[in-house]
């Protein structure tokens, strides 16, 4: 499996607060291949964002992270010094967040941002050196590719003069220029209106087809994951509870939580008289249930569910589920 760009095994992450440590991500395994888009789906507090941030080492100082292994293109990320990691991130990994404003220097115009990326990537190959020399034309072309026809005008604007959608487009143009091996996007369309959101999602798909890179897409929105991702991992209370190819998971969800989520999220697509509810609330990371995390809310809960956390069962075909109902092995 040499085409695996990012491989994570046994990732734990948490925060130390008030003298004790609260773990919010536990035992996460993740593989993303070249040209593949993997979605992490979860509600707030599920640990989906912390998973992404801990791989990128972007958590605040009081965070605690450990893992058995984090491999990126054959490099062991755990062994890298902070400096070496920053360097690697700056050359190979692009990040897109919910709020694109943070990715821009407010004092610099759009053209400065694009130019900088072209110059930074000039070291990659002789072709990139040429491209950096003619960066202006290349930048306008890229802006056109992301649906900004008047790129030459936009280049002279400051970030605050652009709308959220335009900023996210510009950021995608910058990612295109950057040509990373891995893109991590965390809820990149949550602040956008429905129609603009659709356009931006389409751009993400085009972007990935063009760069043929690995893409980690973090979202709470089932329908977005459905449209975009090749594979998904569903997180609940800090653990992955189900994983598999998107089409199969949506067509035939195995974990009761995934089933409930799909029922309550997608039932609205058609005219319904009554929505199916998942009873109860999300557990707090300081007060997790003893056995299966979903047991208190689960329709299929049995006494054994309370005894111990079920292991991930391999269902074949790349599918896995953490539930006793499938624990045949």
């Amino acid at each position, binding site marked *: 499996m040499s085409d695996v760009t990012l491989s994570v095994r046994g990732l734990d992450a*948490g*925060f130390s607060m008030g003298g004790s440590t*609260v773990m*919010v991500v536990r035992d996460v395994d993740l593989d993303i291949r070249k040209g593949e888009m993997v979605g992490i789906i979860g509600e*707030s*507090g599920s640990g989906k964002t912390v998973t992404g941030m801990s791989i990128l080492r972007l958590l*605040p100082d*009081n965070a605690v992270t450990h893992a058995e292994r984090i491999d990126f293109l054959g490099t062991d990320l755990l062994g890298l010094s902070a400096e070496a990691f920053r360097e690697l991130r700056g050359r190979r990994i692009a990040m897109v967040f919910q709020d694109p404003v943070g990715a821009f220097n407010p004092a610099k115009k759009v053209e400065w941002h694009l130019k900088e990326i072209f110059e930074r990537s000039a070291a990659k190959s002789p072709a990139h050196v040429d491209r950096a020399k003619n960066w202006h034309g290349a930048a306008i072309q890229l802006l056109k590719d992301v649906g900004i026809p008047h790129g030459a005008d936009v280049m002279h604007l400051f970030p605050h003069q652009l709308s959220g959608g335009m900023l996210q487009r510009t950021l995608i143009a910058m990612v295109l220029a950057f040509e990373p091996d891995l893109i991590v996007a965390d809820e990149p369309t949550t602040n956008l209106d429905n129609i603009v959101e659709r356009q931006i999602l389409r751009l993400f798909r085009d972007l990935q087809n063009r760069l043929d890179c690995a893409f980690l897409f973090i979202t709470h929105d089932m329908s977005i994951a459905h449209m975009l991702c090749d594979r998904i991992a569903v997180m609940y209370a800090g653990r992955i509870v189900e994983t598999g190819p998107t089409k199969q998971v949506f067509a035939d969800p195995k974990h009761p939580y995934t089933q409930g989520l799909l029922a309550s999220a997608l039932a609205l697509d058609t005219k319904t008289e009554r929505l199916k509810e998942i009873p109860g609330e999300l557990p707090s*990371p300081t007060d997790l249930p003893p056995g299966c995390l979903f047991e208190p809310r689960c329709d299929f809960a049995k006494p054994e569910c309370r005894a111990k956390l079920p292991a991930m069962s391999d269902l074949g075909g790349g599918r896995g589920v953490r539930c006793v109902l499938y624990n045949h092995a």
Partner: protein
Amino acid sequence: MAAISLKATVFEIRRNRVVATGLAITVLVLFAVTVGPSLSPYDPTKMDFTALLKPPSWTHPFGTNSFGVDVLTRVLYGARNSLLISFAGVSLGAFAGVLLGMTCAYIGRWVDATAMRFVDLLFSFPIFVLALMLMLILGFGVQSVIIAIALVYVPNFARMARNTTMVVKSEPYVQAAQLMGQSALRIMVREILPNIAAPLFVQFTVGLAFGIIIEAGLSFLGLGVQPPTPSLGVMMADGKDYFHRGPWVLTLTGAALTVAILGLNLLGDGLRDLLDPRLRRRSAE
């Protein structure tokens, strides 16, 4: 805006050394000025011509002054008076300032604009100059010092109360109170005030320290508390005249003043960090 649980607060105080030190000093000072005077065998005003300007000793730890009165006893009584005057002044200033600031924020428009320009005007005077001016208008004496301190603090509290009220006023829970039909006064007291109290409390603590300085300054110049009633300012003015023969009167009184102010300032600064959610460590969610 998340409310802070008592347990977390206690933990933060223990971790935050600034608050802990400030709190320890302040508690010590409060203990000294409340219980201290009754423990002293001496009278703060009774002269003893057999023991004029005695240096510090076991019987007089801070020495005696030019009238033979025990300096430590006078410091304890004086600090109590200074603190009381400062407390009265800052309380009055806080009450008037908060009332003014909240009203301005709530009513808005020309009331707000006019009152806040007046507050700006008061702000543009150096604090001590302002206090001196007020003293000249009001005449000398304890009451005048209290009013002077209050007026110095009105703009501080007014501006802070106004700005925080502006923020809280647009919170949905205030709108919900409006929708219930609660009166403006009730909304200000019940809904807004508890949520802006924390920064005001910090301001109050720091204000108490500067109030002591203002009192001491004015009394030092002879405009405030009149001798023989002890106050830290009066005693320092007194000690200044005999500095060459009895340096302990001025220095030890000054040291006591410094300790009290340091304690209150540390406490205020620490509380500011503690209560400001932006400065608190980000917690996981």
